[in-house]
Every structure is written in structure tokens, then in C-alpha cells.
């Protein structure tokens, strides 16, 4: 049925499912499940609540929520008003939350009772609404909505979501993606991967992050059932895959590695799994092979970014000899390799990967100088180094950007350095990425202190200021940070 409302907005995918898939399962979280019809009514209900709270088109609303039904409802409720959704990792501490709230100019935070204390710690007059847990201002159980209405005053160029990109400047950069960007992402991704209405897709990776968020939107577009798990726990993941007949499992390499080494899981054949997706960090061939040995299918690498959405995915039929590739570009996405003078390179020559996509943004919000460096002539310069082989398969070989990639979560060394420098007994610091024997990257800090400090002093100091993943796991105290004459840290000289 043709929607009477604008098909320009991302919520039009819900309208189509409301009409055509109303009794099919949309979302499952623990013992709770909702059909597409119920999901749409919940979206309408929360939209109404937000409107009554004074939220209007263009306002920014933070979703400070874990993987949950409420995240999905919250996203569509916010965008249904024409407001802009700002997902924030539930792992973030108050200092990080404060930054994102302030940077985005958010008017309201949707959160859980468990996270309320962190949100309250902002000392700001921003409205905070609990939508999950005790004392909720709005909650699923109290929904009495009986109709679903799409807002029809949203244009395709209106912003739908703010995502954040990690760089090396000490401050995350805000990326706005429009309704048209998200619709293109869902269309291009689903057309390429061939998922369908019968798929059951497990989300353990955080849906506040661009990788999971893109997969989530694509899943809902095709009317599949999405299953939410709040955290990665091997036992619960295996149980969910088996009991729910999960067919699609987006993961990060670390998860695939530990699952392959998890003895209780090896007793099972994940016969319903048709795609295991790996993204966020490089997947070692040894991990891919071990996963296949254990569970009978190779993970498929996906490549994307906050700036562009999904770029490519490895859908090769004979994948065993292309395990290291992140695949070919998804539908309507163009990928080129260029040298330092911006000349296009030939097959198998290594250079910077640049991308043109209908799902990408064309700037960082309020950062014209940063934007002009990476958004040029309609392309996004990823900062990743790679090559494209004769069959069009992309191989990522390195990166120009200075960030640390911990199991798919990007950490800006500058941000960690800024936090450690707040310690009155630290006079200088340099943070770098190191790899352990399993190939997993971790944060290492080199510190010049004014008095004798212990490693635990620094860890405790960081603990309530940045999320755990950013806290250095290796800390060394040294006499001097090597710097160039202009003061730039010479990271390569740190052992």
C-alpha cells in the first residue's frame, strides 16, 4: 500500500511494515517481544509524550540507552517528530555524556533508571526522561496508543541522527546523517546482502554505534525480527543463537575469537546462521578459519564508517580464499584508491580509500576546517589505506589516522591524554595503541609525573572520567616524552 505520508523520512519503513507486516515480530528483548504493529503504536505513543514535553522539529534528543526495545522505539519516536536523534553509548561516564549533550545542544535525554544517576550528574537543566526500569516517565507497559501516524513535514535533507567519529584531535567529531542518507543506507545494504523478512538478527554490538545502527535500520526495513542483548556474554549469545534460530549475527572480531575458544559452544551446530558479520576491526584469517572450524561458516567482513554508513561487505560465494577482504562496495557506493597527490591508483596498488555514497554525510557539524580536509569533490577520504584487486574486492592494509581500535571501539589518544593531564601530579603524557599476542589492540600510556605515582593511581583517576575501554591497560612512567621541535609527540620513539 502506498503511504499517504512522505516517503522521504526514515520512519516510512515503519509505515510500510505497519501496513504489510503488522503481526510479524519486530523486536525481542528477553521475555518481551513486539510485533511491527505494536512497535509502531509504541513509537506514536512516545512521540506524543515528547511533543507534550515541548519537543519540536529540529530539536536534539539523546538516547542514552543500552541495546533495548526502548532504543528502537526512541529512535523512531524522535525522528517521527522531525527531531534529531543523538545515540550515546550506555558505557559512557558523566564527563563523556556531558560532552555529547553540550556539543549536540540536546534538549532532552531518554535513559534507564540504572543510568539515571550518571545523567543527573550532568548538573544541567536538560530534561531527563526514564523510559526503562523503575520510575519511568514513559514506559512500554503503559502504552494505550491505538493509531500510528507519520509526521509529514519532514524533508529528505532534514537531519535524522547525529553520530560521532573518533579522530585524533581529542574531541569526537559530529556527523549528521539525513533521512535520505539513512533510507539509502538501508536500501543499498539490504539489496546487497539479500536478507529477508524471515531473518532473525541478533544485536550484541551496541546499536548506539554506527555499525550496529546501520544493520538495525536495514533489519527493520526488510521486516526482519531483531533480538537485543545488552552486553556480550558468551553463554547468553550461544543460548540466543540456538533458542531463537538466529540467522544473522553482526559481531566484532574479538567476539568471534572468544566464541571459537568457548568450549560449550563447540558442541553445537549453528545450523540456522547464514551470515556472521565481522566489522569494527581487522579480522585475522586465523580467527575466521577457527570460527569456521567450530561453527561451519566463515565470518564475512563489512567495512563502513560513521561518515558514510556501510561501504562494502564480503559476499563472495567462495569466501575461503578472500577471508581478509572487506568485499565489494554495496549497491550505489563507489570506492576508489588514490595516492597522496589524489591520483587514482590501478588494480592492487595501495593508497588511501575514498568513498562516494548516497548514505554519507558531506561535513562534520561546525568544523569547516576539519571537513574540508576529508570531504572533497563529493568523496569522503577515509584515512584508511588499502587496495582493490582485479575482481573488485577491497583489502584494507593500514590507516593514516591516529586512533586506537579496541575490538571495534575507536579510542582517540588525544582524549585519553587530555583526561590524564587533568591529574595535578602529571606533567606530560603520550598515549599510543599496542597489540597483545592475540593481535588485540590496547591503550598504552607513557607518563611523566611530578611525584611518585602508581599505575593504580592513574587507573582510579581515569575510572569515573572516561569509559573503561579508554583507560590504559599499560602505563609506564618515564622521564620525558619524546617530542619534535614543534612540540609534536614522536609516538614512534615510545617503545
Amino acid at each position, binding site marked *: 500500500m502506498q503511504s499517504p505520508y512522505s516517503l522521504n523520512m526514515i520512519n516510512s519503513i515503519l509505515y510500510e511494515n505497519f501496513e504489510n507486516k503488522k503481526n510479524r515480530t519486530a523486536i525481542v528483548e528477553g521475555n518481551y517481544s513486539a510485533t511491527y504493529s505494536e512497535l509502531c503504536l509504541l513509537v506514536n505513543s512516545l512521540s506524543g509524550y515528547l511533543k507534550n514535553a515541548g519537543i519540536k522539529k529540529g530539536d536534539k534528543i539523546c538516547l542514552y540507552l543500552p541495546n533495548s526495545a526502548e532504543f528502537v522505539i526512541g529512535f523512531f519516536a524522535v525522528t517521527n517528530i522531525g527531531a534529531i536523534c543523538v545515540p550515546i553509548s550506555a558505557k559512557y561516564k558523566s564527563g563523556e555524556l556531558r560532552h555529547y549533550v553540550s556539543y549536540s545542544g540536546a534538549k532532552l535525554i531518554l535513559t534507564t533508571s540504572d543510568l539515571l544517576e550518571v545523567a543527573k550528574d550532568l548538573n544541567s537543566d536538560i530534561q531527563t526522561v526514564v523510559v526503562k526500569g523503575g520510575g519511568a516517565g514513559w514506559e512500554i507497559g503503559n502504552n494505550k496508543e491505538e493509531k500510528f501516524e507519520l509526521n509529514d513535514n519532514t524533508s529528505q535533507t532534514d537531519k535524522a541522527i547525529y553520530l560521532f567519529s573518533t579522530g585524533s584531535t581529542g574531541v569526537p567529531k559530529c556527523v549528521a546523517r539525513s533521512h535520505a542518507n539513512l533510507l539509502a543506507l538501508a536500501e543499498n545494504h539490504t539489496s546487497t546482502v539479500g536478507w529477508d523478512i524471515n531473518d532473525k538478527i541478533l544485536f550484541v554490538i551496541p546499536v548506539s554505534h554506527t555499525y550496529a545502527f546501520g544493520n538495525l535500520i536495514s533489519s527493520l526495513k526488510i521486516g526482519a525480527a531483531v533480538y537485543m542483548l545488552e*552486553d*556480550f*556474554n*558468551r*553463554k*547468553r549469545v550461544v543460548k540466543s543463537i540456538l533458542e531463537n534460530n538466529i540467522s544473522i549475527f553482526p559481531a566484532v572480531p*574479538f567476539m568471534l575469537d*572468544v566464541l571459537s*575458544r*568457548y*568450549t*560449550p559452544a563447540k558442541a553445537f551446530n549453528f545450523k540456522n546462521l547464514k551470515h556472521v558479520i565481522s566489522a569494527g576491526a581487522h579480522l585475522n584469517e586465523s580467527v575466521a578459519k577457527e570460527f569456521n572450524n567450530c561453527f561451519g561458516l566463515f565470518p564475512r567482513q563489512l567495512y563502513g564508517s560513521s561518515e558514510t554508513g556501510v561501504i562494502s561487505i564480503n559476499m563472495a560465494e567462495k569466501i575461503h580464499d578472500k577471508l581478509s577482504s572487506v568485499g565489494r562496495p554495496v549497491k550505489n557506493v563507489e570506492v576508489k584508491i588514490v595516492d597522496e597527490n589524489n591520483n587514482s591508483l590501478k588494480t592492487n596498488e595501495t593508497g588511501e580509500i575514498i568513498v562516494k555514497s548516497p548514505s554519507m554525510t558531506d561535513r562534520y557539524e561546525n568544523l569547516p576546517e576539519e571537513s574540508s580536509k576529508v570531504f572533497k569533490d563529493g568523496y569522503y577520504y577515509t584515512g584508511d589505506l588499502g587496495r582493490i584487486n582485479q575482481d573488485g574486492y577491497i583489502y584494507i592494509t593500514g590507516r593514516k589516522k591516529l586512533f586506537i581500535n*579496541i*575490538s571495534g571501539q575507536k579510542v582517540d589518544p588525544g582524549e585519553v591524554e587530555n583526561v590524564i593531564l587533568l591529574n595535578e601530579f602529571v606533567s606530560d603524557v603520550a598515549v599510543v595503541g599496542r597489540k*597483545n*599476542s*592475540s593481535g*588485540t589492540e*590496547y591503550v598504552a600510556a607513557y607518563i611523566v609525573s611530578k611525584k611518585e605515582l*602508581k*599505575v*593504580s593511581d592513574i*587507573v582510579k583517576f581515569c575510572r569515573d572520567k572516561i*569509559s*573503561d*575501554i579508554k*583507560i*590504559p*591497560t*599499560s*602505563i609506564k612512567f618515564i622521564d620525558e616524552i619524546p617530542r619534535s621541535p614543534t612540540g609534536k609527540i614522536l609516538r614512534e620513539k615510545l617503545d
Partner: protein
Amino acid sequence: MNIDDIKKRIRLLIYDKFEIKDDIGDSDILIDFGLGVDSVSSLEFVVALEKEFAMEIDESEITPDILQDINSVAKYLIAKL
């Protein structure tokens, strides 16, 4: 296996698997050596313990208190073995 044997094996595992060169006492705080600071390093430590002691550990049971030092890890393992 007595608790001293378990502590010895935990210590050797930490030296070997996590490439830590400093001496670690039974009551030294493990996060001082980068173990268990975040969910990734905690789970890597748990996976290494599972392999070393041929046992299954549910990571949802693992609190920061359990990973505090070699004493607390050994006490947890004794109760599980």
C-alpha cells in the same frame, strides 16, 4: 590441587599470556598490571583461566572483586573446581 599451586599457575599464566614482566605478589592489584581494566581485557583473562584450568566460567559472575588480585582469583577458582 591446593591453593598455592593455583596461585602459582595463575601467576605463570599472567606472565606468559599477558607478557607482564614485573613481579606480581598475591595481593598486588591486578589492574595495576593492566588486567581486567575493561570488559575486553577481563574477558581475555577469563578465557585464559578457562583454558589453563580446563573449566567453564560464566563471565557474568566475574566482578571486579574477583579479579582484584591473585588471592581473589584463586579463591574463586577453588570454589569452582
